[in-house]
């Protein structure tokens, strides 16, 4: 087998376009998914049974089914409700919904990891539950959940490849198209894989540095324990 190096040069721009769309889609998906995940996490912990049930159901449903079928369902069901969206927007919604279920569990574990005394001291001084959350609990949750949230974002980058099945012109779809033109699957898919891998490693490295910086500032013993707790809940992908 001989490697056709020209492929790398000729088709790099095309693949990079696909890569760019992948980035845009993932950014939109987490912009929607993380707030939704926060809402679901609070909902699941809520004393209102109805809200808690709905949140838990949403989370379980999206965590216990393959992403590909969620994508197809969004693709075919949304037009029923009058929403004729382009494949890209369907993809963003599907990825956001999928991501939010995992974000919710991460955030929930983070909230639970904050020592009980923090909530008690907030309530004892007269704060409402929401004030306690906003001022005392959630800020502490942030430094706890940042690593697993980043991890989950990396997972979303990889899952976004599945959007190729509904013809979104992200990186994988672009790769398939180039492969169809050139009939050189090895070169093309290696390039595609390397692009994903490079993105993955870059974000992971940035997060590791950032994590070290945050922990330097205000690390308590409880935060160290929380990381250990979260590792158990973490989706290692």
């Amino acid at each position: 087998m001989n490697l056709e190096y020209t492929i790398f040069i000729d088709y790099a721009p095309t693949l990079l376009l696909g890569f760019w769309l992948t980035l845009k889609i993932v950014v939109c998906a987490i912009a929607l998914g993380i707030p939704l995940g926060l809402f679901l996490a609070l909902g699941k912990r809520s004393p209102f049974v109805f809200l808690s049930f709905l949140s838990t159901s949403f989370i379980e449903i999206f965590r216990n089914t393959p992403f590909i079928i969620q994508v197809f369902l969004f693709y075919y069901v949304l037009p029923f409700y009058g929403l004729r969206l382009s494949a890209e927007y369907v993809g963003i919604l599907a990825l956001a919904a999928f991501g939010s279920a995992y974000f919710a569990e991460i955030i929930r574990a983070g909230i639970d990891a904050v020592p009980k005394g923090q909530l008690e001291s907030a309530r004892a001084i007269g704060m409402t539950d929401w004030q306690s959350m906003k001022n005392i609990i959630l800020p502490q949750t942030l430094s706890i959940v940042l690593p697993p949230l980043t991890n989950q974002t990396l997972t979303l980058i990889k899952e976004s490849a599945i959007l190729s099945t509904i013809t979104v012109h992200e990186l994988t779809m672009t790769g398939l198209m180039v492969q169809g033109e050139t009939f050189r699957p090895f070169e093309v898919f290696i390039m595609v894989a390397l692009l994903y891998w490079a993105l993955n490693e870059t974000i992971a490295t940035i997060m590791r540095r950032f994590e070290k910086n945050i922990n330097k500032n205000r690390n308590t013993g409880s935060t160290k324990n929380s990381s250990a707790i979260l590792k158990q809940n973490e989706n290692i992908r």
Partner: protein
Amino acid sequence: MKFDISYIIDALPRLFEGALITLQVAILGFCLSLILATTITIARTSLNSKIFNTIIAFYISFIRGTPLLVQIFLIYYVLPVFGLNLGPFSAGIIAITLNSAAFVTEILRGGLASVPNGQFEAAKSLGISGVALWRKIILPQTFIASIPPLVNEFTMVLKATALLSVITVVELMRVSQQIYSANYHPVEVLSATFVIYFLMCFVVSRSSAILENKLKVKRA
């Protein structure tokens, strides 16, 4: 177009057949992955070869850093170029096995770390070494410690099988696509398929606790 439940009822027999294939693929892939991962784990710990460890580290990094779908395409489209014409089913199993094994290796690494060092020493002082050491003493403890993440990994494999539909393996997802391309009712058919996947994964993940209890060993 209204939701018509008769399409679901008609589709169910074929869907269940597809679900069976899904389960078979998942179980086969997961078992092979366990074997591969266990071998790697033992080799990593016993061989102490820097080259080997570097290769494995690279392999794990690649698998964890790239989408499974791309890995599947790599195996399916690229192997024939090297002369290996395996067919979609085999290619799919290989892709899933290689993918899952990387994650299981990391899981076992964690499980192994939780086995107290004293176990190795006690066994060696009794003259147990080599294969027996691993088979009778270390591996059982490693696996029992790793049950929750392993069960989680199996549900990931179950969900991953759906991607094989893209390379024409006739598992549940592919079957449902075949059905609704014929009857033009994707919503009904996909909904039923969705529920079947959910039930499979949900049951498996709930059984984690039960499995842990059954196999529980008291620490001495």
